[in-house]
Structure formats: C-alpha cells, structure tokens
C-alpha cells in the first residue's frame, strides 16, 4: 500500500529533477531551488525494500505469502542506517538504494528491538561508492514548532512533507507491550509511517513510527530514544529498554486515600493494582502500594510527573529512559507508612511472557502428534480471529491473555493449546476439537511445550498417549501402535514437513 502510494506520488511529480534527464520535458526545464536540508539528505537517507516472510500462526509449519514493504533508512554511521522495527518484522531479505546510485545495496539487521521499535541495519559497504553522511539527532523539542520530514522515494527522488509538533505522550507501542514517550505530529501533509526523518529548525529530531491518514497525525520516535538505542548497541550485547512490571490505577478517590491511611495533605501517588512476575518493580512492589515518587519525581494521582523538559508526562518514561540494571529509588506508601525501595530496572522479551505479545522472526512453537496440533498460545495466534478478535476468541483462553500474560511462573511458563485437528483415521471422533488448553499429557502437568515432548516419552509400556484438557473436555487417547505410520501419513497429506518445532 505504502509502496504504491509512494510510486504514484513520485510518478506525478518526478519530471523536473535530476533523477532522469531523459524523461524531463522541455516545459519543465527550469528546476526550482532545492531546500538545503533536502539536498543534504541525499547523502544520509536510503530507500529500503524489505521482503518479509512471516509464519502462519494458525498452521505454524507454514509461512504466509511474502510481504513487500518499504521504509526509510536514516544514516547513523557511514554504512549504518536506522529504521523502525515495525518495518522489518519477519524480514527475509532487505536491500537499500541510495540517492543517485542504481545498484541495490544489501542490508543486514544488526540489532532489532520491537519494544522501542528501532532497528539498526548494516549496509554492504562493498556495494557503495562512498560512505553515507550520518545524521546528528538533536534532542531539542518545541511544542507547536513546524517540522519537515524527508525520505527517499522508490524511484530515487528526495521527498518531503510538513507538519507541526502537536504534543508528546507516553503511549503503548503499536507493536508491543512497551510504553514510550512519542512526539505527536499534527496536520501532516503526507503519510509518514515508515521511518521518515523529522526535522525541526534544521535538525533531525526523530523518525516516524506510524501515522493516521484520517487524523493526519504521526507518531515520531524522539531522538532521545534513538540515542539510548545506539548507545546500547555501541556497548555491545544489546540490553534494550527497561519495562515496568506492574499496573497502576489513578488514585483520585479521597475515600480510598483515607482507607489507605494516607494523610490528607498527601495528594500525590498512583495506586498499584497489580504486580507482574516480569519487569521493573515486579520483585519489589506489592499490589495495594501507592507509588509516591520515582527518583525524586513526584507522581500525581494519574501517575504523571513533571519532566523538566516535557512537563507533565506518564511515569513509564522515568523507567524506560534508564538502562537495564540500574537502581531506581521508589518512594511508596505501604501499610499506612512511607517506604523507600531500591528497584532494579529490568525488561523482558516477549517470549518470556506467559502469552507472548508478539512473535517475530521466529517460528511459533508447536508439536503435531497424531494430527493433533498442539502449540504455544500467543497473542498473534488469537489475532487470527480478525478484527474484534477479543470478542470472538474462547473466553477461557482470553481470560489467560487478559489476566495472566505478564505472570509466567515455574508452574506455568507457557500455555499450550490444542489448536485444531488435522483429520485422519487415528484421530476419528476428535475432529471438531479446537482451542482447548492442555492440562496434562500422560499424567504430566504441562508447564511448557517442552513438557509435552518430554511427556510423550513417559509410560513406555502404555499402549496410549493420553492428553487431558482444562475445563470439561474429552480426553484424547492416541493408539501408539498406529502413531508412527499415522504421523508419516498426516505429515505427507497436510504438507507438514516438520512435525515438531519446540526450539
């Protein structure tokens, strides 16, 4: 979609510029003066083409159709460009084109972080005639300021758009569970959702994460986050950004404050509704705590603090701006008195969640036995139900997603479901079973899909494999004497090359 649009725009406006003299028309021979930034960007921006090849989360032995995406690559080194992680999910091949060069340049992902939505690409220097001119991002910020944004089009033309800084907000990422500070750009002249670089007062201040056509707004990743990312990459062994491991509610209710024995003059603080088993604060906080301040910054009843640069913003920024492994001082109200906690910043990978929020660049974990498709429950799996999937998926499964996603434990590291059954003689009578949560296999309680692989080796003298499910469900009984033959047949008939992927 984006690509077509860019090509279309380029086709309409392309005639005057230097890209292709052979096409220029006599009537347009006089080229207008270039914007100096636009001219400079010719040495700093590349056009990226990404071939993504995601797995089919419903039939995880298979891939979906190849998706072609385009994005803007912004030089941060002579051969390094930065783009958004959302453009490179499940990338199989990435190539770049730079201004004035016909040949494609191969690109490799050096680091991708789906939480901060940033990706560093390494370009093949042997295909480049000269190095890029790295951008120097500026962390200056001015609400209401005009911004211009630039990108290189698919046909090698430097293009630009314009908008103004409407606001800044801590928002949940569109891609992941993570919360970050974003610049919100209003009244944008063209869509900006593929890492276009934004300039304020002649300096780059961030890259586009997403945009809305209807509202003519864009979300921009601020320079501050880009710096944090690049510093972290430079240190080697990329750690990422801290994430918070608890949920809060606003604490406006004076009765609740009184109930918590908070003195009447104490008006600040956010109520900790729930503490997870992952993320910053998960080990130190308790539900029912009130967070009064983090690193000396007082939280108001909505969980916001006054940032010296941005003014009133959400507390997650106090955490995500830090590095992993730092100690943050939390001032809390617990059991009727003030306490100070030293909270260690941490983050977690999506696959550490009980139900991963996303699953990019990896094959979903599954195991097919006797045609029963057992797989790890993930959010992308549930999103296969389409728009309004929350109202369509089985409520028992949705309950786990809603209540337990951030609470894996030793007893429950993953949720494994029977997704569906590939019909065959061996599973006759079970063909209509689907989306049931596996409780035990051969008597062993299942805490992860690895447990299933292990459990299938149990009871060597038994004639059957036995799978039991949560809630009232039939017990699956598999005749082991037929299993090898049936698996071979099912694998061949349904085109399942690999029956097991449990990494």
């Amino acid at each position, binding site marked *: 979609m984006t690509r077509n649009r860019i090509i279309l725009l380029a086709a309409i406006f392309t005639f005057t510029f230097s890209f292709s003299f052979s096409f220029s028309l006599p009537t347009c021979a006089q080229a207008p003066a270039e914007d100096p930034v636009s001219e400079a960007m010719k040495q700093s921006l590349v056009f990226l083409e990404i071939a993504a090849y995601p797995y089919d989360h419903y039939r995880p032995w298979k891939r979906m159709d190849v998706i072609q995406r385009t994005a803007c690559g912004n030089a941060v080194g002579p051969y390094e460009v930065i783009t958004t992680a959302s453009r490179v999910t499940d990338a199989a091949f990435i190539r770049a084109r730079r201004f004035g060069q016909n040949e494609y340049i191969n690109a490799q992902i050096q680091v991708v972080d789906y939480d901060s939505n940033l990706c560093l690409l390494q370009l093949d220097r042997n295909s480049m005639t000269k190095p890029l001119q790295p951008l120097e991002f500026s962390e200056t910020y001015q609400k209401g300021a005009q911004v211009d944004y630039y990108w290189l089009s698919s046909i090698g033309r430097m293009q630009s758009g314009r908008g103004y800084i409407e606001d800044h907000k801590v928002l949940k990422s569109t891609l992941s569970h993570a919360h970050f500070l974003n610049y919100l750009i209003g009244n944008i002249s063209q869509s900006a959702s593929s890492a276009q670089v934004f300039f304020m007062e002649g300096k780059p201040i961030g890259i586009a994460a997403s945009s809305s056509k209807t509202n003519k707004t864009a979300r921009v990743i601020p320079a501050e986050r880009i710096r944090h990312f690049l510093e972290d990459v430079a240190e080697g062994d990329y750690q990422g950004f801290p994430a918070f491991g608890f949920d809060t509610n606003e604490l406006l209710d004076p009765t609740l404050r009184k109930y918590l024995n908070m003195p009447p003059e104490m008006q600040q603080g956010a109520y900790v509704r729930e503490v997870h088993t992952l993320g910053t604060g998960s080990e130190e906080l308790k539900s029912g705590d009130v967070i009064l301040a983090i690193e000396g910054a007082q939280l108001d009843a909505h969980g916001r603090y006054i940032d010296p640069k941005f003014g009133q913003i959400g507390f997650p920024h106090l955490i995500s701006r830090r590095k992993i492994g730092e100690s943050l001082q939390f001032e809390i109200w617990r059991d009727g008195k003030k306490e100070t906690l030293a909270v260690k910043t941490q983050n977690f990978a999506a696959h550490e969640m009980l139900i991963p929020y996303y699953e990019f660049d990896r094959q979903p974990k599954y195991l097919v036995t006797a045609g029963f498709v057992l797989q790890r429950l993930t959010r992308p799996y549930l999103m296969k139900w389409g728009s309004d999937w929350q109202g369509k998926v089985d409520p028992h499964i949705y309950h786990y997603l809603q209540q337990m996603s951030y609470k894996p434990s030793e007893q429950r590291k993953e949720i494994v479901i029977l997704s569906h059954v590939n019909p065959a003689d061996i*599973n006759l*009578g079970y063909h209509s079973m689907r989306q049931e949560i596996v409780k035990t296999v051969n008597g062993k309680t299942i805490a992860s899909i690895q447990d299933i692989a292990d459990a299938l080796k149990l009871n060597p003298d038994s004639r059957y494999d036995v799978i039991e499910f949560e809630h*009232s469900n039939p017990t699956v009984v598999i005749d082991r004497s037929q299993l090898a033959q049936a698996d071979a047949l099912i694998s061949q008939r349904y085109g399942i090359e690999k029956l097991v992927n449990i990494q």
Partner: protein
Amino acid sequence: MFQRHTRFQFRIFRLLLIGGIGLVFSSDLAGQEPSYDNSVVMIRGVSQGYDYSTPWKKRSPSRGSGTGFIIAGDRILTNAHNVSNNQYVEVRKQNSAQRYPAEIAYVGHDCDLAILTVPNSDFFADMTPLELGGIPEVNTTVYTYGFPVGGQLISVTKGVVSRVQMDLYSHTGADGHLVVQTDAAINPGNSGGPVIQDGKVVGVAFQGLRAAEGIGYMIPTTVIKHFLKDIEDDTYDQYGSLGFSYYEGLHNTAYKEYLKVPQDQQGVIVLKTLMNSSAEKVLQPGDVVTHFDDYDIDNDGMVRIYGRRLDMSEVIEQKQIGEFLELTFYRDGERHREKLPIALNRPVLDYSLQFDVAPRYIVVAGLTFTPLSRNFLQTWGPSWISSIPHTLRYLFNSSSELNQARERREYVVLSEIMSDQVNAYADDFENLPVETINGVTIYRLEDIPAAWDKVQGGYCVLEFMGSKRPLILDAQLAQDRQQAILNQYQISSDRRLEN
C-alpha cells in the same frame, strides 16, 4: 443435558402488525382443506418488559399480534412469545368484529407455548376445538393457518414436511426441543397458528430461519402434549433434565478401549455433571452412557424413537419433572444401572431469557445490584455476545466450570450507578460481578443487605470479579445519601428481593 452456548440464528416472529391491506390467500385453498374459521383466532397484545439495568423501571410497551387456536376445554393454545410480558391480551375471531379480552392461564416459556382463556363464555359457543395428531411424516403435506402480516383475515399456506429434529427454541434462546421443519410460509403473525394434516393439529407454527427461504418451524404435538400434561396439576414445572454434558467420542476405538467399553457397545462419554444436579451423585467424567431406559444410545448420541433416529434427550423430553429415568453406563469396564430423577438442573447462570418476572435488585449507595442474567446481557444489543465485557462473557459461557461454591444461587452484577458524591469514583466497576462486600462472599442478591452492615472501620469494601482493586465507600456517607439518591432518581423502593 445442559446445552453449550451456541450461536443464535433464529428470530422470533413477533413483529408489529403492519397496517394496510395486503394479499389474502385464505379462500383459494379452502377447498382442499376444511375452513378453520371457527377454530383459529387472532391474538393481539401489549407487551412490556423490565429494564434489566435499572430494574425498578419498565421498558416502553410494544404491540404485537399472533395466532392461536381452540383446543378441548374452552382453551386457546398459542405461543408463549405472543403473550410474554403481556399487560393486555385480546382475541378476535375471523367473522366477528367483537374483541374478547383474554387471560393467560398457563405459559411455558421453555417450550414457547401458552394457554389462554376468555372470561366471556359466549366466546367459545360457536367455536370448534381442534384435535391433536401425531408427528407428521417427512415429505407429506401440511397446511398452516394464521394471521400473518399483510391482512386481517385467516391465511392458509401449504407446505411439505422437510425434517424432524431437535433444535433451538429461540424464545428463550437456549432451550432445545423437537421441531418439525416445513417449507410452508411461516411469517410474522403466523406464530401460534395450527399446522394441520388430515384434519388434526400436527404442530404450532412458531419460528423461521432468518438466513434461509422456505424454512419454517412448528412445535410438534409431543411437545404440546408434554405441556398440556404438565399443567394438569395447575402449575407449569418446565422441562427437566439430568444435568450432565457429554461428548460423542466413541467413534475412536482407542478412546473406547481406554474407557474399557466393549468394542461392540455404543454410547456417549460423560464430560461433566452439573453441580447440585440429579446426575452429580451418580455419574462422573469418563463414564459411558449407553442406555436411557431401554433405548440404545448410539455413538452420535441418537436413539431410535417414534420410528425415527432422534437425539437421546428425546427420551427425557417425554417425561415430567419428578419422574425417573433408568440410566445404563459403563465405568472401569463395569456396567451400571441407576435410576435418576428428572429435575430442572439449570446451570448457576441460566442461558435462558426470562419473561413475566420482575427482576430482583437492590440499590445501595446509588449502586444497583441485580442478578446476572441473559436479559441483562442482552441490553448490549444484537451483537451482545461479542460486545459484553469479558468477565461477563466468561461467566456466561463457563459458569458451571467456574463456580466452585455449592451455595451459590446466582452471580450479582453492579448493573448501573446512580451518580452521586458517595459513588463518584465507582465508574470503573460498573458491569462487574460483585465477589465480596465487607469480606462476605455474595452468593445471591439477598446476601447483600447483611454483608453491607458489616462495615469495616467506617468503610464498605467491595471486591469485584475481574478487578484487581477494591471499591471503597464511606459507610456513613452511604447511609446519609441513601434516601436522597432514591428520591433524586425516583426509585420508589430500594429493593425487590422477590420476583
């Protein structure tokens, strides 16, 4: 058996009668079948149900019309949905201008049947009762009589019986009984009319399939007779069940061996017994039920009955509550036979819609508590099942799995907040089921007053299912504001604890 929730694809024909003149088909076909002008009557009524979010209020009334017919004993048989939540019913004859006010004598919502009587005894003087026949054979002709939209006179349509099967009765949205499917046109207003074959009633027209053409359904005489027998003692007790769910899984030979059932034996596998049900003490998951009385149950859960292959529940459908059924089942390779009483055996959160009952409620501190019901959930509109809050959807789907408390009679939901200073911060809790009040678990609406009085240090502490934080109210303020809130919102009584 209790049914799993399924998608509801039927609609009830109870639209308003359209004014104006339409086509009338009655006279053309009257030659082939006798006229039933003296047996078929038009029923008009005014229906007005309750608002289930603010249960002290009623909703706007609506008028509807349907059909009924005379049966023995000066009674009119019609559909329950023609007279549900009714404030006024009148009956009209084909050949007379007179309106006869009628009374609802019995109503069976689960089988969508009702009996009306007419106090004016002149009414029945020139009327001829119809007799009940049997279940019509497939591919035989039937005639439907009624007052469908488009005219004021009796309309007759002719059709063929296409299927006899167990199906959903859309009136309550959850009950399943035998239905006869026909391609005779059944349109809004036909509801409650007789379907006739060889001069006898073989069914009551009652619903159609929205997505298809030429698929209409009638209630067969087995269901009508069950209803009539049930009310012989002057009360309607409803259909009963045994209270277990099952799976048709014996097609799998490994499963059959695992459950130690003889290979030539057919049956169904028990998945769960309902708490406090007839089956609970007798059956357990993994039992294989092979016979209901002397009927052989096959691997699809079907039996041979009335010369047909029908769902095994038809054996129970023949019985009244309090009667017994002899159950044969296998457990650990051994055959058992037990007598079980037929009882209501409903899950703690009933799937069925309620009618003709005033919903119970309590308003305290401006918080309206009412039992969680299908009626309440349907206030979310046509796509309620996917748009209701997750916690409610989870309970509705899985109450019999989730409820561990034997003493629980219902779930109680905070249905509406009548805004006031005392509850100014309670909005997040609206539409959540209440778990405890002041530490007391709420198993039924009636638990609330006592729990409310157990004030803890000046606070009322409410915990809700699906919420990780409590709602704290100032107990004194709640008491002080109670009457003002009732006055402000014109709530004449703070509670209705009996229907």
